[in-house]
């Protein structure tokens, strides 16, 4: 039996996540939920001008959502806000690099959707309340 979704690099990220934790002085942060399953992710970012100088995440979720968060953090650190805003569903799927069933795409998209929501609100309001869902 092959479980294509759960390849070693995915399980590596799940078991040893990159950029997990919190920042001392985040510029903005967001907590978001997947209403289908109740999984949650919190992402913090410190900006240097328009660049994501540091990003961290914490989450309670499945292999796919947590591996996606870990991979996303690696990908976006150092990028500008505009570069992140251009990322879409296919970019996230490419990062993961494994076939996902339709329902599990929602798990994979939770961290990116949360980060984009956070950037959007930061740009609108200039700041983020600590607990936003």
């Amino acid at each position: 039996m092959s479980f294509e979704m759960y390849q070693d690099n995915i399980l590596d990220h799940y078991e040893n996540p990159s950029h997990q934790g919190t920042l001392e002085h985040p510029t903005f942060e967001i907590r978001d939920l997947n209403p289908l399953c109740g999984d949650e992710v919190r992402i913090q970012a410190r900006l240097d001008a328009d660049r994501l100088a540091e990003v961290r995440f914490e989450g309670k979720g499945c292999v796919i959502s947590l591996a996606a968060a870990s991979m996303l953090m690696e990908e976006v650190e150092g990028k500008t806000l505009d570069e992140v805003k251009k990322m879409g569903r296919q970019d996230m799927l490419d990062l993961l690099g494994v076939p996902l069933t339709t329902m599990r795409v929602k798990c994979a998209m939770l961290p990116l959707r949360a980060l984009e929501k956070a950037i959007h609100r930061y740009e609108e309001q200039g700041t983020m309340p600590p607990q936003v869902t």
Partner: protein
Amino acid sequence: MPNVSTRQGQTVLDAATLRRDFPVLARRVHDRPLVYLDSAASSQKPLQVLDVERHYYQTSHANIHRGVYVLSEEATLAYEQAHERVAHFIHADWEEVIFTKNTTEALNLVAYAWGLQHLREGDEVVLTQLEHHSNIVPWQQMARRTGALVRYIRIDAQGRLDMEHAATLIGPRTKMVAVTHVSNVLGTVNPVAELGNMAHAQGALLCVDGAQSIPHMPVDVRALDCDFFAFSGHKMLGPTGIGGLYGKRRILEQMEPFLYGGDMISEVTFEGASWNDLPWKFEAGTPPIAQGIGLAAAVEYLEGLGMEAVQAHAHLLVGYAMEQLRQAPDIELYGPEAEARGGVVSFNIKDLHPHDVASILDQCGVAIRAGHHCAMPLMRVLGINGTCRASFYIYNTVDEINVLLEAIGEARRLRRR
């Protein structure tokens, strides 16, 4: 009845034979035989239901009521007989059963039509920690509009209602006790008749969410002495888009309508309108005719099996599944003992997220549900984000539970450490 036999004095179902009535069960997924263990979310449908719906569309379809031609009369008769059949199934009079879209709509009907009319500031609605979102959110909204309060009866470590807590909550301020008959997560069968007595002693009403009980056990609304009983058709072999609300006639007659429009009126003038008789007062617009007729066929199918046999079959499967799962030290089971529950088993495997387990099981052909099961407050009480839930119905077999157990073994491979 070929699909029922007697073993050791107990009537049991011949699931292997009656599976032939369910064409979908013969299909394969991911090149494995389908093992469908998600009937608590929605059951599969027998040919007897599918055939009745198709026959209706092919021979008699027309809009009901007010048509004086043959097709409309046949459709009207079939739809009214469907009410009678479903009402008889739960020991109600046919005028007391309103067809709705599903349990959720039925509960919203009670919350809006009864709740807005009767709830006042300071009144209390008593629910339980076990409720599905559909029996929480409508009451929260009505409470917000009326100034009433929502209280929740606690559960104990076994997932059973703390009846001492219930006795302290249900008091003179209580106007409504709304409670699930069987928990969709833990399978707990609640003592609804006892809760009804407590409610009635305070002048309050009892509304029962029967979504998970009516598919699995004999339901007698007179014996339960409930004031409302809400249910869905699609969990009891019937089509989607059809469910029902039983209400005591005296209460329904005093209630204002929920939805307004055609067919629910007696007379309309430019100045106003008066309401039709029960149950039509609560069925505005063209109703789900084919679905209602399909639900009646589902009821006929279940009556043919006998609800005692249906209940015994679920007990047998739940008992076996729990006995097997309990032997695994890395599996946590939630809820009461098998004798005290309906056809669901909720569990978690140590260090594995329910969604990951469900994905691996799907690869093995096994369909279970994973997540919060529309009971997020209950998940918080249990201190978890979600569970894996296997649920069983008349067509499931012990062999299928063995496939589930093997697939759980496959899921364990996700833990590489």
